[in-house]
């Protein structure tokens, strides 16, 4: 069985669970991040940005679902991750503890939030258009393709005005839909290099164990080892997420049973699209 860990959710689920596992994760959120999972509020006077809280929420929900699955007697043979999903995935394969995963994403999110105070960034989502058109539109607008989710679903990241221009070009070229979202940092682009030193220092505060379950990463579809995890957590933010290739790799390995471990069903829907193209 394969467990897949999704990236940052766009919004919170409602209603939230209230069982013992959820309450345990909520306690960890309070203790390690100063974040109240139930009210979605920061506890400290310094506060957390809305994006950082959503990132912690996303990891928290993945950790909660992992616990529930294990309590139901389900265990993964392989784990794959998409973007922010890597933190909960590391906990799921016992490379780091749940508290460390939450604290790590909170610290990295808070660090990235500073970028948004210096420059307005945005994400753009063109759907139903070819990869080549998206790449050209992004290049001409000075932004980057941050996620290659399927053959028709992409995420762009960069300066807000550039995202707007790239999406307009995609729309003019026949995209089925385009949408833009504010963000604090241009995730999965080379622009994140300016934060690399700061992020590396944060990551260095944690000790990563060898994954007890194979963990497939989203860039080159290789298995992460304890030795390369710290560098991966810094460099992956500067490179695109290649989910389509990741899912195709999983299929090639031979996995057919898959559970999405987190908030929403985005990866499951991407996988459905990728699988359907094989049949078309």
């Amino acid at each position: 069985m394969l467990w897949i860990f999704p990236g940052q959710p766009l919004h919170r689920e409602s209603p939230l669970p209230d069982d013992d596992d959820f309450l345990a994760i909520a306690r960890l959120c309070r203790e390690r991040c100063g974040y109240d999972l139930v009210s979605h509020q920061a506890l400290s006077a310094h506060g957390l940005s809305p994006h950082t809280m959503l990132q912690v929420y996303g990891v928290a929900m993945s950790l909660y679902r992992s616990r529930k699955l294990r309590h139901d007697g389900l265990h993964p043979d392989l784990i794959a991750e998409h973007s922010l999903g890597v933190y909960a995935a590391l906990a799921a394969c016992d490379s780091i503890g749940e508290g460390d995963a939450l604290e790590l994403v909170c610290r990295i999110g808070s660090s990235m939030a500073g970028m948004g105070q210096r420059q307005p960034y945005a994400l753009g989502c063109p759907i139903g258009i070819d990869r080549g058109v998206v790449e050209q539109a992004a290049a001409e607008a000075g932004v980057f393709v941050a996620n290659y989710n399927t053959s028709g679903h992409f995420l762009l990241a960069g300066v807000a005005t550039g995202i707007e221009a790239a999406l307009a070009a995609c729309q003019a070229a026949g995209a089925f839909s385009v949408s833009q979202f504010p963000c604090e940092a241009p995730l999965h682009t080379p622009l994140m290099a300016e934060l690399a030193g700061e992020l590396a220092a944060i990551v260095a505060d944690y000790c990563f164990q060898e994954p007890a379950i194979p963990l497939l990463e989203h860039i080159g579809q290789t298995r992460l080892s304890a030795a390369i995890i710290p560098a991966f957590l810094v460099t992956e933010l500067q490179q695109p997420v290649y989910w389509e290739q990741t899912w195709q790799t999983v299929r090639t390995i031979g996995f057919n049973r898959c559970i999405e471990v987190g908030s929403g069903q985005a990866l499951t829907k991407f996988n459905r699209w990728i699988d359907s193209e094989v049949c078309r």
Partner: protein
Amino acid sequence: MSDELIPKVKQMIIDALRIEGMSPDEIDDDAPLFGEGLGLDSIDALQLVVAMEKDFGVVVPDAATGSKVFASVRAMAAYIAEHRQ
């Protein structure tokens, strides 16, 4: 005329979106497909666009058209009846 298409449209939705454990009868003819209804999103919309073209030869060119077409199963059936060859 378009009402005759409704069962086929419901089956297409179930097949295209791989909705497990749901029969066509459980989908309301007039309930919204997105948001509160079946809870579909833009990823689902593109999957339905492809399915409509494959099964009925009908093209939904953009999201603006899609928002009207995918308002309900009945709206989808009406659009297909109006546009198919």
